[in-house]
Structure formats: C-alpha cells, structure tokens
C-alpha cells in the first residue's frame, strides 16, 4: 500500500511523462528519430514514439550511425533527434567530436541516464558512467541539459532551436524514467 501511495505521489510531483516529451519533440520541428532502444526509455518513450504520427523512426545498429544520419538530414533542413542510452553517447564521442563540433552541425541527441538516482544530480551519481557523461561533454564544449521531471520538458524545444540556430550539437539527458 505504501508503494502505491509513493507511486501516486511521484506521478503528481516529480514524474516525467513520455507524452509530454513527445509533444515537445514534435513542437521542436523534429521529423526523424534515429534510435537504439534503452531500457530507461523503452516503454515510456520509444514505444509510443514508434506509434506517433508525424515522426519517422529509423532503427540503427550503432549510435554513431545516428550521428551521421542526423548530419545528412541537417543539410536538407530536416530536423532529427537521436534517441539512445548514455552508454551509446559515450560510444559515439568521436563522431560527435568530428561531425557535431568540428563540422559545426546541429546534432541533437536525447540520452537516457539509466541508473541515475531520482533527485540526485548526474554529477553526484554513484554510477561512474552517469557521473562523468556531462563532464565529458563540458570538456568538448557540447551543450547539455537534464530533463528530470515534467517541469523540465519546456527546456527541450529551446535547446533544439538553439542547436539549429547556432549549428552546434546538444544533448538532452533524460534523468527521470519516462512514464507511459
């Protein structure tokens, strides 16, 4: 019973709803979603995205493929958002370095922070990968934002707009696990 109360309280106060995230992605003008599944976002975000009209999902085999696809689309003034787990982001660092930073292209990425503790800043996480991901992007000069709850969803559209306006990459970390 106590668990149910806790879940209900979370849904009211500090939850992140996939519907809100999808609406923000669409409002940003994104048409293409290159993606790899992530258990952090699987049910609350990726599965509903796959059914969402107006968005084309492109299932890739490796995350850096998605960086290249986003780059190609950007030359055609088509907006894309690469959805992955933060581990895939770390695996794609050279692609982000070359294609995003040195080519100066608006590579927009959304990365699930699997195992990030609720209410704990990523840099304070007990999990090494979660803790260092933002610092690595800082060292690269890549903008990043944490989307933890519904209250943060309004950051998504300005972040994507800014990436396209400045022709720079951006990473949106999903700290909270999106609810369906």
């Amino acid at each position, binding site marked *: 019973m106590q668990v149910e109360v806790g879940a209900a309280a979370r849904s009211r106060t500090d939850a992140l709803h996939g519907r809100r995230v999808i609406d923000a992605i669409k409002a940003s003008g994104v048409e*293409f979603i290159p993606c790899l599944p992530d258990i952090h976002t699987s049910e609350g975000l990726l599965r509903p995205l796959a059914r969402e009209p107006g968005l*084309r999902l*492109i*299932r*890739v*085999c*490796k995350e*850096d*493929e*998605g*960086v*290249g*696809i*986003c*780059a*190609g*689309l*950007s*030359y*055609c*003034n*088509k907006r*894309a958002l690469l959805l992955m787990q933060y581990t895939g982001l770390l695996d794609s660092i*050279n*692609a982000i*370095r*070359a*294609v995003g930073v*040195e*080519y*100066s*292209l608006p590579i927009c990425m959304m990365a699930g922070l699997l195992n990030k503790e609720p209410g704990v800043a990523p840099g304070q996480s007990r999990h090494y990968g979660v803790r260092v991901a933002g610092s690595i992007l800082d060292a690269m000069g890549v903008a990043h934002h944490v989307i933890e709850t519904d209250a943060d969803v309004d950051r998504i559209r300005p972040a994507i707009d800014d990436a396209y306006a400045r022709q720079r990459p951006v990473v949106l970390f999903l700290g909270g696990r999106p609810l369906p």
Partner: protein
Amino acid sequence: MTMRRDEALRELARHVTDDIVVAVYTTAFDWIAIRPSPLNYIMTGAMGLGSSHALGLALGRPDKRVLVLDGDGSLLMNLGSLVTIAEVAPANLIHFVFENGTYEANGSHPTPGRDGVDFSGFARAAGYRDCYTFDDLGGFAGRIGALLRQPGPIFITMKIVPGAPPKLNYEYMHGARVRQEFKAALARSA
C-alpha cells in the same frame, strides 16, 4: 583483374549529373579532382560514417540521387549501416565500396580479411535491392550507365588499385567551411 581507382572514377563521372556524391578519404581526393562539384560532400574525421551521412541525405532529399563512394576500411567500421540502409530502403541511394584491401589513408596497412571478404555478399545478405562486383574497367564502363538508372538501394563493389597519388589537403576537408558551402549548394539545387 583490378581497375585503377582514378580510371574507374573518370568512367563514373561520365554518368553523374546533378547528383549528391558522398566521398570518403583517399577516394574523396581523387573524386573532387576528377569531378569538382558543389554537390560533392566530403566525409572524413569519423571514419565509417559516409554511408550514414548518405542515408540522411537520401531521406532529406528524395528528389535527388545520392551516390556514396565508400572505402573498404571505412565500411568495415560501420557494417551495421548496411542493415540500416536496407531497412530504410531509399530508392535514390547507390552505395559504392572501393576495395583495395588496405587502410590507405592511414599508411596502407592491410584490412582484416583482405582478399576474402565479399562486400557485395554482405550487402546482399543485409537486404540491398541489387548488388554487383566489378574488377575490370571495361565491364564497369559497359554497365554503369544502366545500373545508375535502377531503383536503389544498390551496392557496387569496385575492386581497385590506387592510381596516380592524389593531392591531399586534409585541413580543407576537415573544416566547417566546406560543409557550409555544400549546404548552400544543396539549397540552391532544386
């Protein structure tokens, strides 16, 4: 038998019109010398991603034919892109791999599996619509015009040896300016 890469590219150039051409590494230097065009897109710096850039371009500009001039070392770094491209199945994408069995841009050291890997076999198994292999210039010259008129995705293995050493200018190739020029040219190209 094998072809010289520069001779094969000259033959290909006879059939290229207002296409987007994504070229990688040493092949890119040969290509831009043989057929300069504002719609040439140079892919260096993140080895293997030429085919993925080409997929994005093919999706973003379905009105244009997109040719990717890949290398065997590059494709080995991104074999999954064959599967991704086959699933998306862009009718306007033609994927060449220039196979010489070496990482030519990095000292011409041998690639793993050289002489044994069947790249067109990979592409066929991944699901490309049609796959071809050429190892002589006459055979390639006789068929390339018709192949380019087929719906994609098509995969073409070119078994080549390098020709005359191209003039290398990586500083130009790595920069953002060449990307901006390409984007502007693409916007102008209806």
